[in-house]
């Protein structure tokens, strides 16, 4: 069963505030072998916050997504400024595009990641591929 068509254009409530700690960034850096000197977090670090927004979307009962059929198709980050320890980040996800290709739903999402002052830090674009039931 395809994802609910009314999902297109829908904006979800912001995720709970996420405090970026030096310990968490250091662990993420160590796990990926990235350099971290206490300054800018590695460039893919905001996935930690964007993932919470995507999980909320996928878990939403009205939306009709089955988690085991979801594949991450594409990801992009566009920065206003680097993420640093001490940042308190929230992600507000909008479903920008929704289309069906060969029985799969292609869900184009955009998460605006803002700091405690409401300032834009980065935008995370994720395309999720929800495979059809027959697949």
């Amino acid at each position, binding site marked *: 069963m395809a994802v609910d068509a009314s999902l297109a254009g829908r904006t979800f409530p912001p995720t709970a505030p996420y405090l970026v700690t030096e310990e968490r960034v250091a662990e993420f850096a160590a796990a990926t072998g990235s350099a971290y000197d206490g300054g800018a977090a590695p*460039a893919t670090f905001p996935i930690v916050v964007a993932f919470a927004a995507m999980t909320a979307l996928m878990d939403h009962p009205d939306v009709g997504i089955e988690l085991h059929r979801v594949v991450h198709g594409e990801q*992009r980050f566009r920065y206003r400024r680097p993420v640093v320890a001490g940042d308190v980040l929230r992600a507000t996800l909008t479903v920008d595009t929704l289309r069906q290709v060969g029985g799969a739903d292609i869900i184009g999402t955009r998460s605006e990641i803002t700091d405690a002052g409401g300032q834009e830090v980065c935008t995370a674009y994720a395309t999720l591929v929800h495979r059809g039931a027959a697949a």
Partner: protein
Amino acid sequence: MTRLRTGDELPEQRFAVTRADLVRYAGASGDRNPIHWSDRIATSVGLPGVVAHGMFTMALAARALDVWAGSPGRVREIGCKFTKPVVVPDDERGAEVVVNGRVAEVDDGQARITLEVTCAGEKVLGAAKAVLEIA
């Protein structure tokens, strides 16, 4: 820091990826999808075996960019498609991800980089691009 010019081929970066890395990344990123640590589950959904998180491979591309830029914190934009999974065998060597890059354009203190990310000779990330701040 090395000056980047249009047309520059950037030095190749090679990264080993083991099962231990995926476990560590699962904890650090919050993505505990079992296809990244269980052969039983990965094969049950049609994969050849445990595969790396797409975001982990993307983090390796970001790591290469930090090396080319001369320091972390210079990635303004990074994006890619998750074209093919990186299969990670359960042994000491793991898989090897190879990252190459080319400076497509230098403009106004920023360098647009096109990336080629492969594993065992096959492209694993598609349309991989980044923007580095180089001023």
